[in-house]
Structure formats: structure tokens, C-alpha cells
């Protein structure tokens, strides 16, 4: 993971998606107008977040089965980074909803679900700080993390699809694939998603490496 090529890939993917996202053709729709371009910037935040939470969950499982402290550190730092992307996603979504839906926080199941999921992961971080003993902290928070992950998936991706939601692809709403007739948006969107996921993972590895150095320092002193 310390190779440089995928970091360059991350940077270039994000930059390509910015240029293509601003300039490229988009379907002309009422109310949405040019704000349809937000798909390239707002949605990748959530993809980056769920990737980081998945990494965190996987490493929590790995920690429980092996007992290696490094795995627990990866799990925490993945949540720490993921929560930043979560807040960025919430914030950009609210700015956009204020204009297109006329309310920054309409009572949409997806919004409420994401709020609960955010609180759940904040609780994870609070829980970690509350426990003093290192091994107990790692074990309890790993179990919590493993349980929080499927609940987050249900709240964000399954429940809104079952009920009426303002978000595309739920409650009979058309998905972006249906709106985008000539399929121009698809490659730009996937480039943006890949770029942001890689950027998120990169920031996570940086945090993890800093944490490793810190741990070594505290052990030495």
C-alpha cells in the first residue's frame, strides 16, 4: 500500500472528474438544471465513506480472530476518515437540497437513516475513548463495529429503497441510469467514485502510519 502509482491514479481521477463533471454534457431536466452535476461530487463522498467503513469492519473481524493491535488501529483510522467523508456528504447534500427540494432537511428516509448511521459511528468513537484498558477497548469496539456495519447498510441502502424517498432509485423514482439517455454521465461518475475512494483510502493509510509512529513513541518513552 506504500506504492505511489495508485495515489497518482487517485489524484488524476479526481481531477479528470472535475473537468469532465463541469464541462461534459448532461441531460437537460427541469428543477435539476445544472445541479445534476452534483452527482459527480456529492455521491462519491458516500461511496468513499462506505468503502472505509467496510475496511474498518473487515479489520475488526481480523482483529478479533488474530488479536493483532495493528488491525484495531486500522479499524479506528478507517472510521475516523470515513466520518469526515460522511459529514462532507451530508453537508453537500443539504446545500443542494436547500435549492432543489426547497428544504435542507426534508424528512426523507435516506437523510434520517444517514443521520442515525452517523450517530452510530460517532458513538463508536466515543465508546473507544470511554474505555481505559487497551485490550478491552479494542475487543468491545471491534464487536460494536461489526454490528454497526450491517445496520448502517440497512439504514442507508435498503430501507430508503423500500419506502418513498426523494433520492433516485427509491419508491418508484427513476435512477440516474434512466435519465441519462446517452450514457455520458456514467464513465465520469465512475471515474469520480474510483478517484474519491482511492483518496479516502490514501488519507486513511496516512492516519494509520502516523498512529503507528505515535504508538512506537509511547512504547519507547
Amino acid at each position, binding site marked *: 500500500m506504500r506504492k505511489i502509482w495508485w495515489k497518482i491514479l487517485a489524484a488524476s481521477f479526481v481531477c479528470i472528474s*472535475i473537468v469532465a463533471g*463541469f464541462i461534459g454534457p448532461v441531460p437537460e431536466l427541469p428543477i435539476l438544471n445544472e445541479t445534476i452535476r452534483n452527482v459527480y461530487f456529492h455521491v462519491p463522498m458516500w461511496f468513499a465513506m462506505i468503502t472505509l467503513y467496510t475496511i474498518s469492519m473487515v479489520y475488526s473481524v481480523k482483529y478479533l480472530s488474530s488479536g493483532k493491535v495493528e488491525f484495531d488501529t486500522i479499524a479506528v483510522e478507517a472510521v475516523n476518515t470515513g466520518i469526515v467523508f460522511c459529514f462532507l456528504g451530508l453537508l453537500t447534500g443539504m446545500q443542494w437540497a436547500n435549492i432543489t427540494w426547497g428544504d435542507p432537511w426534508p424528512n426523507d428516509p435516506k437523510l434520517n437513516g444517514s443521520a442515525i448511521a452517523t450517530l452510530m459511528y460517532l458513538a463508536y468513537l466515543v465508546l473507544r475513548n470511554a474505555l481505559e484498558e487497551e485490550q478491552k477497548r479494542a475487543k468491545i469496539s471491534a464487536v460494536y463495529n461489526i454490528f454497526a456495519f450491517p445496520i448502517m447498510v440497512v439504514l442507508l441502502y435498503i430501507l430508503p429503497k423500500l419506502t418513498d424517498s426523494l433520492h433516485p432509485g427509491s419508491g418508484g423514482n427513476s435512477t440516474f441510469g434512466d435519465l441519462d439517455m446517452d450514457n455520458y454521465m456514467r464513465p465520469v461518475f465512475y471515474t469520480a467514485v474510483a478517484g474519491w475512494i482511492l483518496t479516502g483510502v490514501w488519507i486513511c493509510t496516512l492516519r494509520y502510519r502516523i498512529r503507528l509512529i505515535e504508538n512506537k513513541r509511547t512504547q519507547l518513552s
Partner: protein
Amino acid sequence: MKKIFLSTSFLFLSLLSAFAQSNGVEMATGLRSSGKIWVVVLVVLTLFIGIFIYLFTMDRRIKKLEKDK
């Protein structure tokens, strides 16, 4: 060397002024095309390139710290 530099800079400046003078009709030239949206693209792109350069330098500093150990 100095002569070449001076002459090229003079050429560049004169070109620039010629460009500025022929501004009577709005044309789709470079950064002025389609409502000047490219200017915004340039600004956002600069921001993100800056952020990525910052990430790369941070990466290098952490690598140095790791080697010290």
C-alpha cells in the same frame, strides 16, 4: 542568453497586448468560452491539485519519520 530571453519576453508581451486589443467581439477563445465556466474549472482544479500536493508531501514526511525508527 539574456538577449534571447528579452526578445522572447517582448514577443510574448506584444502578443498579449494584441490579444487584449482584439477584444471587440466575444469569441470562444480559451478561458473566455461558454460563460467563462472554464475559469471556475481552473480554480477548482488548482484547489484540488494543491490538496493532492499537500497529501503527497505529508506522505513523504511520514515516510521519513518511519525511516528514522
